[in-house]
């Protein structure tokens, strides 16, 4: 992080030096240039091009110089569904304040509103992207800042839709304060390292709000993921820090707040999982610390699949979930300790804030539902209470050592 910041400061200083020598041109109907491509072609590195209000029907705008495209209010580039609209292969550039729309769909090519390859030290901010296939597609780049863009489309099927912000083989990137909705994945990262994703709002995407593939050493925080197929999917990645995010209203048969697949050594802290069908779906993950998270009114707060080892759940709140935990294996190598469970009915006679009776978060009924999903309609019936109780007294189907030995009596504080 620190290195990242230093480099940015240095590059900013560098800009100012160059800027004094650079000139500014304008694009509008009555200006010297009325096509953006013309203005770009005639600019030299370090120039600023101001795009005045108006609709510019252009696509495949090539930028190979270190220039700054700045859109004034109501400056609209309409690609008329012809393919990629702005294609940058230069460093030290910026694109700001533009509205870019109608990218067009391709099943063979990754058309994007803004395509950046092999770049460094760039800024893409305050843009509005509408009806895009891919929004901002960045490959093999470093030290980029993508901030405060508003990207949306009208995705209906995975195959015919692209991602809002798509990063491939990048490092040291910052994605901040963007709004992405109605795409395939809101933000997609593949082979991306040492990057941070923060304060974004990702909603109504048909697959994932945020998607990590083969990306290590990244961090995402203070994002909101709402009503996506799954809030966040983290797959085949290591050392990811996830904190202060909100995952909510991700509803549906394969809907998760957070989907973890083959992840190791992650930290998940201070997140809120609210009203998701499944709060966290954990598949083959090890050495993950879950601390200070709030699971509120989810269908399943946590659902385990496959071999999961050495995961530690401490000081989390489990409040009014239909099921706190679903566990398909008979073995348990994960630790639950000191969590608050709203379903806990024990007592605390010695008043140390810790319940005197252990809590068993896996119910027999959750096991039955795993085997026969239709039995879900019997949720909260007296019969189910009876079988749950008998299982609680003498566990037969659920792992015997899956127990919170120190359930806390009062919920942990709100996130801070």
């Amino acid at each position, binding site marked *: 992080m620190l290195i990242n910041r230093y480099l940015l400061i240095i590059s900013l200083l560098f800009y100012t030096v160059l800027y004094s020598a650079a000139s500014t041109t304008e694009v509008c109907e009555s200006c010297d240039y009325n096509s953006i491509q013309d203005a770009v072609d005639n600019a030299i590195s370090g120039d600023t091009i101001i795009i005045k209000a108006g609709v510019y029907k252009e696509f495949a705008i090539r930028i190979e110089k270190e220039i700054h495209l700045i859109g004034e209010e109501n400056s609209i580039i309409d690609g008329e569904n012809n393919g990629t609209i702005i294609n940058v292969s230069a460093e030290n550039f910026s694109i700001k304040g533009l509205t870019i729309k109608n990218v067009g769909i391709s099943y063979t090519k990754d058309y994007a509103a803004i395509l950046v390859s092999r770049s460094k030290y760039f800024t893409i901010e305050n843009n509005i992207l509408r009806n895009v296939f891919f929004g901002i597609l960045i490959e093999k780049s470093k030290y980029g800042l993508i901030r405060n863009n508003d990207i949306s489309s009208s995705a209906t099927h995975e195959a015919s839709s692209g991602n809002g912000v798509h990063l491939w083989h990048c490092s040291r990137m910052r994605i901040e304060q963007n709004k992405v909705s109605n795409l395939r994945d809101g933000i997609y990262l593949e082979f991306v390292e040492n990057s941070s994703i923060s304060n974004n709002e990702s909603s109504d995407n048909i697959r994932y709000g945020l998607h990590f593939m083969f990306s290590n050493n990244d961090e995402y925080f203070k994002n909101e993921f709402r009503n996506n197929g799954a809030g966040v999917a983290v797959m085949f990645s290591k050392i990811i820090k996830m904190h202060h995010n909100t995952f909510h209203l991700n509803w549906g048969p394969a809907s998760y707040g957070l989907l973890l697949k083959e992840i190791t050594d992650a930290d998940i802290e201070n997140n809120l999982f609210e009203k998701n069908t499944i709060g966290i779906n954990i598949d083959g993950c090890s050495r993950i610390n879950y601390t200070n998270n709030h699971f509120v009114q989810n269908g399943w707060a946590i659902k385990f699949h496959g071999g999961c080892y050495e995961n530690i759940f401490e000081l989390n709140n489990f409040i009014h979930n239909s099921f706190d935990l679903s566990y398909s294996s008979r073995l348990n190598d994960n630790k639950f300790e000191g969590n608050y469970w709203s379903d806990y009915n024990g007592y605390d006679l010695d008043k140390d804030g810790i319940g005197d009776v252990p809590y068993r978060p896996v119910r027999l009924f959750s096991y039955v539902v795993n085997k026969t999903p*239709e039995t879900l309609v019997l949720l909260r019936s007296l019969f189910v209470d009876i079988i749950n109780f008998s299982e609680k007294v003498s566990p037969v189907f659920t792992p015997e050592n899956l127990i919170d030995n120190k359930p806390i009596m009062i919920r942990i504080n709100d996130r801070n």
Partner: protein
Amino acid sequence: MFKIFKYSTYDLLRSRWSYVYFSFYLILGFVLLFLNSDVSKAVITIMNIIVILTPLIAIIFGVMYYYNTKEFTELLLAQPIKRSKILIGQYLGLSVSLSLSLIVGLGIPFAVYGLFMSMVIFDFFLLLVVGGFLNFIFVALAFIITLYNENRIKGFGYAILVWLLLAVVYDGVFMIILIIFKEYPLDTFSLVVTMLNPIDLSRILILLELDISVLLGYTGAVFKKFFGTGMGMLSSLTVMFVWLIIPILLMIRKFNKKDF
């Protein structure tokens, strides 16, 4: 009818048992809210109690009330009043006073704890509606049982049996069938079977409010349509009305043909 309704309500509202029932709910509400001051948790606990206990109390009260007022009913039968009006009057009297005990008994503690300003007002309202329905349905079932059984012991026995069947055994058999036939598509079946039992039906109505996120986790298209759209609430309420009307009609038919 209205006169008989008025007098039986009046009589019941002054009976000891109404107070017992009323204070049960009052104390329950206060205790739950006092213990954890978490209104949502209290709503969940109360849901369990309403779905299970309200039918039991209604059916026992119904049987008791009918046997206790049998002679008075005979006195009324000798008066110039249509038969069915006597029955409906008494039926409404009992059902309404039970429902009033429930609504006021739970309403006071929740109001005191500021429920009416919180988000759970709709959940709470739904609970009361469901509780009311269950009162009306199970009082009707109780009257049917007593109309067929002059013997009090038998009547009480059948009442408890009916409750036990609908509250526990039904779900057990239901679950076993689902587990045995899990290879087959069962979502329509399971919804229909749920609808056929008023206790399960009320539970589903409340689940639609409290546990919608888990219900949407199931993949079946029928489930999805049922739980994911307004259809679930609408059809559950419709079937609830059917559940209310059929026992009442059966009860009236039997009463009109009965020899006293």
